[in-house]
């Protein structure tokens, strides 16, 4: 027991000194479990996140928008892949991680349980949802677990165009016809509060924060990050003439931050617990893709084995 405490102490000192932890290094079991959970949750969010946006690929309003959106949703598949790979270094397979998603054991970001009802939602997601995600992700490029930090570096590099794309869509709509502006405002109205919920419960309701900060999975608390997002985003909305749907929102000179209204935490927990507008549909879409792909995956393996045997035989014969 004493040995374990010494090891854990040494481990924490390495992290404190800014060293990275690599997969084969000794690590506390809790560190491993927490990372599998957090990285896979992040990966699941990327691939479930493909669905609400994928919803509009076939209906994109112009060719330029269509290829931009296709490339973006494809990037999300890539990001999911990088993250699953990072989780796999901790000794769990991608199939096992998928199984956790499909059976409801693993979570993904609740924001993707909201429907995309108009083209403007694609703009709102890029601007707000990716904007909120970037704040988290930039922080994670310096997290303690090496494979996770490296995946985040790659993701952040690729992701920079996503938010720009989203904001550009909103900018175009806000400067467009009255119908387009209305579409943009409606999307902002629907996505504003769920975007704020992306940062998680209030600090006093978030028991894991302290441990996460110690391991550098987090460098700021939920409430700090939420405030940072609001402070960045409000002027962006003003710039394009859209109104944030929060009557209590106003600049607080003394704090140097915006004050904002109360989040509907009942809604937050309803969606987290699986009863949001699209939870069932999103999960079912992933399960269907997996089940329908099963014969394809099996066939490819079977073919590869046959080929390998064939080559083996030829080598023996020669």
């Amino acid at each position, binding site marked *: 027991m004493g040995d374990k405490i010494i090891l854990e102490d040494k481990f924490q000192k390495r992290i404190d000194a800014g060293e990275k932890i690599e997969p084969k290094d000794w690590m506390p079991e809790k560190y491993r479990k927490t990372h599998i959970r957090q990285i896979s949750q992040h990966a699941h969010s990327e691939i479930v996140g493909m669905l609400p946006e994928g919803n509009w690929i076939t209906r994109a309003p112009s060719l330029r928008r269509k290829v931009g959106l296709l490339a973006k949703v494809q990037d999300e598949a890539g990001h999911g892949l990088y993250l699953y790979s990072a989780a796999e270094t901790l000794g769990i397979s991608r199939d096992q991680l998928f199984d956790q998603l499909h059976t409801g054991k693993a979570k993904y970001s609740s924001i993707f349980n909201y429907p995309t009802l108009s083209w403007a939602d694609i703009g709102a997601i890029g601007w707000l949802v990716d904007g909120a995600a970037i704040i988290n992700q930039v922080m994670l490029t310096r997290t303690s677990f090496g494979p996770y930090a490296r995946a985040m570096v790659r993701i952040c590099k690729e992701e920079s165009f996503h938010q720009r794309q989203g904001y550009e869509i909103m900018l175009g709509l806000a400067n467009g016809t009255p119908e387009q502006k209305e579409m943009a405002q409606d999307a902002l109205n629907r996505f504003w509060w769920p975007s704020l919920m992306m940062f998680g419960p209030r600090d006093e309701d978030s028991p894991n924060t302290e441990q996460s900060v110690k391991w550098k999975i987090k460098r700021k608390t939920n409430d700090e990050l939420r405030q940072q997002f609001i402070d960045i985003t409000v002027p962006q909305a003003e710039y394009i003439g859209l109104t944030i749907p929060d009557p209590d929102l106003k600049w607080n000179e003394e704090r140097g931050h915006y004050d904002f209204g109360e989040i509907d935490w009942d809604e937050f927990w309803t969606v987290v617990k699986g009863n949001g507008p699209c939870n069932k549909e999103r999960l079912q879409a992933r399960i269907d893709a997996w089940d329908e792909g099963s014969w394809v995956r099996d066939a*490819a*393996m079977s073919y*590869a084995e046959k080929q390998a045997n064939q080559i083996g035989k030829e080598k023996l014969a020669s």
Partner: protein
Amino acid sequence: MGKSEISKNEWPLYEIFIRSKNGLEHRHAGSLHAADAEMAIENARDVYTRRQEGVSIWVVPSAEITATQSDEAGELFEPAADKVYRHPTFYDLPIELKHI
């Protein structure tokens, strides 16, 4: 809700190495799953060179890699730490000398 089963034969993992341009070495880009090496090359092309990141790809089954264990790191790497004579800055030369 539909069933979802873990397949008994998951596609194996491959490590992907990319040469970003001629004259540079291949560097580890990440990993991915593929049924065979041929597919691993194609997947690597689609996953890791979407933004023209490469001119050449190596793929290696992850299971084929032999690695040092981190608890051996001390005996393997620390002995090199005091062999400063392997580094060019160990040798003092007059600063007027250039290009050496």
